[in-house]
């Protein structure tokens, strides 16, 4: 799977202008809140219309303003987990999960739902309402629901931000397991450094509506390409210095190996 996006969108006082692509990996969109990460996710899912750009996944084009293509969200094979999960409050856990499964015989649907319920350790909770279960359990339901329709790609919008630390750690390992079990690429939006560090195969750092750096986790954490990225990844030892090659004053950041970039 290869997903590639080019997105431009202007809203009040903010301009998003990004282009990147990813393969079958766990990509973390990292940056301060308001940097355009969630917006990007919404545009990939088709919940928001970009002013310009394209969204492609393999050979499928989901958005292309030049070709006037805008595939509605329901026809995009992406699973989406919202920041506050958006579980249907009037449906039981099981009904929430089965809601996304379509085009199957009743029996198959039931079997698949049983399997998913079991996999996400929701067996005893299947007939409870979202309001009757805990935060971590809700989280598992949201993940299960998004995965039930077998999406090609999983989009997660800061899903763990409201959890206690212990539950958050549990959820991170669950996410890793799922990613490999379902062999599904994941885009995770977060501004949590630890989360990014523990989960990312690849990081795309957002800063003010642009991509400040994109690369493997090691690259971004150990070789931040600019002062902003260095600050974002919490590197504290940045220095001012003189760039003798280009003869200009610059703010430099030592790379992990100790060399000054």
């Amino acid at each position: 799977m290869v997903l590639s996006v080019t997105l431009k969108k202007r809203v009040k006082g903010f301009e998003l202008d990004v282009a990147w692509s990813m393969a079958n990996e766990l990509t973390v969109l990292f940056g301060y809140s308001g940097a355009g990460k969630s917006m990007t996710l919404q545009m990939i899912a088709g919940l928001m219309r970009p002013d310009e750009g394209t969204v492609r996944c393999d050979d499928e084009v989901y958005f292309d303003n030049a070709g006037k293509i805008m595939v509605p969200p329901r026809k995009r094979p992406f699973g989406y987990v919202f920041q506050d999960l958006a579980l249907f409050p009037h449906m039981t856990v099981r009904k929430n999960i089965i809601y996304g499964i379509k085009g199957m015989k009743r029996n198959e649907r039931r079997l698949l739902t049983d399997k998913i319920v079991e996999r996400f350790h929701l067996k005893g909770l299947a007939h409870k309402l979202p309001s009757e279960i805990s935060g971590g359990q809700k989280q598992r339901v949201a993940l299960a629901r998004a995965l039930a329709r077998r999406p090609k790609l999983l989009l997660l919008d800061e899903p763990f931000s409201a959890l206690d630390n212990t539950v958050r750690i549990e959820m991170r390992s669950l996410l890793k397991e799922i990613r490999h079990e379902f062999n599904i690429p994941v885009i995770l939006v977060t501004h949590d450094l630890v989360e990014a560090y523990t989960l990312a195969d690849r990081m795309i750092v957002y800063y003010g509506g642009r991509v400040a750096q994109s690369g493997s986790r090691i690259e971004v954490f150990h070789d931040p390409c600019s002062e902003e990225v260095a600050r974002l990844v919490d590197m504290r030892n940045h220095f001012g210095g003189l760039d003798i090659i280009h003869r200009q004053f610059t703010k430099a950041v030592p790379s992990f190996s100790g060399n000054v970039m």
Partner: protein
Amino acid sequence: MESSLAFSLKLSLKVASVATLLVMLFGTGIAYVLAKKNFPGKEVMDILLTLPLVMPPTVTGYYLIVIFGRNGYIGKIIYDMTGFSLMFTWYAAVLASFVVALPLMIKTTRAAIESVDEKLINASYTLGRSEFETALKVIFPLAGKGIIAGVVLSFARALGEFGATLMLAGNMPGRTDTMPIAIWSLAGGGDWPGANRMVLMLTFMSVIFLYVANRYSRRII
């Protein structure tokens, strides 16, 4: 005159029930469109549909005669084609009640639909569900209380409809005299005991409906 009380009671319930059924069907649809869609003329549509709420019912009735009367814009076409006129039939009472009750349904239902969290609607779309399915399975169930309140209010309003009904259906004893009209007629004719019975009956029914509406939704009414 026991039978005239029974007749008016039955007629009132029949008219109000049919009108409420129509109000439910059209009202929910219109409320959904007003809540979720943007189109030119939306504001005008909203105002026109709300007008019967603020205008004297006789004015609403007058407009309905202009439109549906035997020589009205639509009434004439119907009359020429079928020889049937709505005027002075119980259908006319239904039409009058429908038009007067509709804005109540639209207002409460629209508010209820707008209060459903946008994220839940988006979640439904990302789970592969169409707009229609989403409305049916997510929006309407979650707006349920407001919709029920709208239905109860509409029914109560339809049951009490007088002005527009009188203009359109007239006061034909044994044919179009719903309870409010019969009360007006009885009081006018000096039959106070008869009027009392009907007034008490109507008051009692209204109290019951408001009680039900309150139980279903404390916030909307």
